[in-house]
Structures are given as structure tokens and as C-alpha cells.
């Protein structure tokens, strides 16, 4: 009886193990590669519904996900979750703080602006891409309305996904740069 049970459980274990959805080595340790943006300005298709202040910038009265109040472990985990399950976060207002690290584009005069968030060991990093409202695409050195390279910046924007080259990407649109 026990032998039968044993023989029936072992294949079950192996089958379960084989259907695993990959390990973390491939799946999540290098998400930076998949963070690229589309579009040339920060204005989204929803811009008509955005309330603007006297300077013509979007106003966000509440923040759904405030990454600036979390520690490194939680921030990295939260951003990883956004990458893994983006549909959960669509249209949420996100606030993030970190060094400005744009990603290279195929267009030499352009780049993909992003805030870098790292885990507690600083060995893994995710870039949370954003598009500032009404500001043209950044350059690799930053400036022209965007922060400078490696400059600490606080960004608030609305979470959206988009398709590019058959891949789904995430970014914050209609974003504003909060300068203290």
C-alpha cells in the first residue's frame, strides 16, 4: 500500500517541478533590459481628463502607490510586481524617488528616461520608466526639462502599459518632477 503511494507521489513531484514557471535567474534578475519607452512626449491619450495647475502641469491629489515611503527591499519588490503583473496597476498614481538613469534608444538623439530602484544588496536593479508631461524626449546626459544623469529625482505619474516590438512594457505617463 505504502509502496503504491510512494510510486504515485514521486511522478507527481517531478511533474509539478517540471511545470515551474522558470527560476529567477532568467525571469527577473535582468528586468532593466525590458524597460523601454514609446512615444515622443509625456502627454498621454488621456490628457484631456487631467486637471492642470496654473503652470500647466498635472495635479495629483492622491498617490495610490508611494514608493518614497518604502525601504529598498519593498521598493524593489513592488516595482518587480508592477513588471510581472502590470494589469493590476493600470491607471494607478505612482510616486517614486531615485537616481535618474535613462536607457539608450536606437535614436541617438533620444533616450528612455527612467528612475533606478535597487534591492537591499544593490546587486539587482529595476528601471521605472516615466515620461514627463509636455517635455520632449530626454538625452542620455539628461537635462532639457529632465533631471541630469544620476541626479536624485522624485517623480509622480500615472501607471500605464504599452506594446513595442511584440513586448509589453510599463511606464509612468503624464509624469511630473517634484523639485523640493
Amino acid at each position, binding site marked *: 500500500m505504502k509502496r503504491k503511494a510512494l510510486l504515485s507521489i514521486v511522478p507527481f513531484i517531478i511533474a509539478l517541478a517540471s511545470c515551474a*514557471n522558470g527560476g529567477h535567474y532568467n525571469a527577473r*534578475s535582468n528586468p532593466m533590459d525590458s524597460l523601454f519607452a514609446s512615444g515622443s512626449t509625456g502627454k498621454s491619450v488621456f490628457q484631456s481628463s487631467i486637471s492642470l495647475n496654473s503652470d500647466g502641469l498635472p495635479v495629483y491629489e492622491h498617490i495610490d502607490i508611494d514608493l518614497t515611503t518604502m525601504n529598498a527591499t519593498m521598493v524593489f519588490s513592488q516595482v518587480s510586481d508592477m513588471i510581472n503583473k502590470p494589469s493590476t496597476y493600470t491607471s494607478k498614481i505612482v510616486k517614486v524617488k531615485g537616481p535618474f538613469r535613462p536607457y539608450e534608444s536606437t535614436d541617438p538623439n533620444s533616450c528612455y528616461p527612467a528612475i533606478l530602484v535597487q534591492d*537591499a544588496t544593490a546587486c539587482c536593479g529595476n528601471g521605472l520608466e516615466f515620461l514627463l508631461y509636455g517635455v520632449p524626449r530626454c538625452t542620455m546626459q539628461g537635462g532639457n526639462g529632465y533631471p541630469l544623469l544620476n541626479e536624485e529625482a522624485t517623480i509622480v505619474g500615472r501607471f500605464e502599459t504599452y506594446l513595442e516590438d511584440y513586448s509589453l512594457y510599463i511606464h509612468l505617463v503624464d509624469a511630473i518632477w517634484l523639485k523640493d
Partner: protein
Amino acid sequence: MAEFFQMIASYFEFRFVQYAFIVGILIALCSSLLGVTLVLKRFSFIGDGLSHMAFGAMAVAAVVGLTNNMIISMPVTIGAAILLLRSSQNSRIKGDAAVAMLSVGALAMGYLLMNLFPTSSNVSADVCTTLFGSVSILTLSTVEVWLCIGLSIATVIIFVLFYNKIFAVTFDENFARATGVKATLYNLLIAIITAVIIVLAMNLVGSLLISALIIFPALSAMRVFKSFKSVTISSAIISVFAAASGLLLSIVRGTPVGPTIVAVDIVVFFAFLLVGFIISRARKA
């Protein structure tokens, strides 16, 4: 204090934190059940060897472009576990030397392959997260969580069903054989479960720290308790406590998950060492 509990409660609203606790506790439970057997069979270091083997297999999977690297890592690790646990004292390379050889060999070859044939621009991050499990447990998918729940239930059921046989094979394999126990079959079972748990546990503490998850709870329990049953039960409790409090600490304090859990395991070990010392002194007096 109320603020502290409020903060913890707010963290538990995050789905990935809930997943991490479910999976972390289950992996800790399973690894501690196996830990007692492995420590008593003098295979404390097998976790290290097998996890490094899994690391090497993952590197091969990445190089050949497999998105699901468990297709390679799981069978390779199971094969290595069977070879190691079944190797007798009469083999030309003794058990500890075989584990050491496998461990460093697979680690070196894995890293070498990843550098020679990089599949991403960030090899150091890939290696770091696999070796130290910095936040892997906090980035699990729903499928991985269900997989872990299924495997953990299967492991606990096997352990409970075959507890007496595993006990017999653990303490005296030759005697168990003489009394009609199919030692080879049960060694094979132990090897398969060990490999599965190790590949899963890489999510929790990373491949360099898996041994701690296996040996510390068992060794801590052995400082105070003496029977196989009491050591196994207390080892499971210690392991679950260390995993849960380590995870909680890492989330609250922002420290790397794997090393924090191991740090709690170390503290618990010294606490049990002290308790064991006090008990033995009291008995002598």
C-alpha cells in the same frame, strides 16, 4: 508599538508579501524535515553541493535560451542528489569529497558559462540574485506559489507516510536492509525530495545559503532534544519561526531576505546551545 504593528499590517496588504510568507514558511518547513535526516546521515553539506549544481544547470539553460530553466536544473539536481546519496563509503571518491567537488565544479562552470555566453547585459546582477536570494522570494508569480504549495504538501505527506522507513534508513542503513526495508528505494526518495526542495529553496535564500536552511534548525533542535521525533518537530518549528521572523525583519528593516533569515537561524542556534548547556549542567547537578 502600535505603530509598528500597524506598519506590519500595512505591508501584509501587498500580495507579493503574502506570497513570500506562504512560500517561505512552506520551504522552511520542508527543508527542516529533510534537514534532520541529512544531518544524521552526515550529509549536512549536500544542500550546498546540489544548489551549486542547480546554479550550473541554470547557467546552461540560460545559454541554450530556455526560459523555463527548471526543465534542466530540476533533473540535473535530482540526478546529482541520487548519485551523492547513493554513493557508498567504498566508492573511490568519498561522500564529503564528492560533494565538495560537485559544489565548486558546478559553481565555477556555471559562472564561466554565463560570462562566456552572456544572455543579458547584467551578468553580475543575475549571479548575485541567484547566489544570495536577495529579493527573489518577494517577486514570485502565482504559478510559482501554487507549485511550491503543491510540492510542499507532497513532501510533508511523504515524510509522514514513510516516517518509520526514513527513520530506519537514516540511523542504520545496513540494519534497515537486514530487516527487509527497501533502503535503496527510500534513499532514492530522500534524494528526489532533497533536490526538489533545494531548487525551490533557491528562491528563498539563494544557492549559497541553502545549507543554513537545512542544517541550522536541525542542529539547534539537537542541542536540546534527543529523540528523532522531538528533534524533527522542534526543527520544523524553529525553521518556520526563523523564516517568518527573518522575512518580517527584512521587509521592515529593508535588509536582504536570505542573509536575514540565516542570521535569525544563527541567533536561534546559540540560544538553543545555551539552553542545552544549562539543561546538561542541571542534570549533572
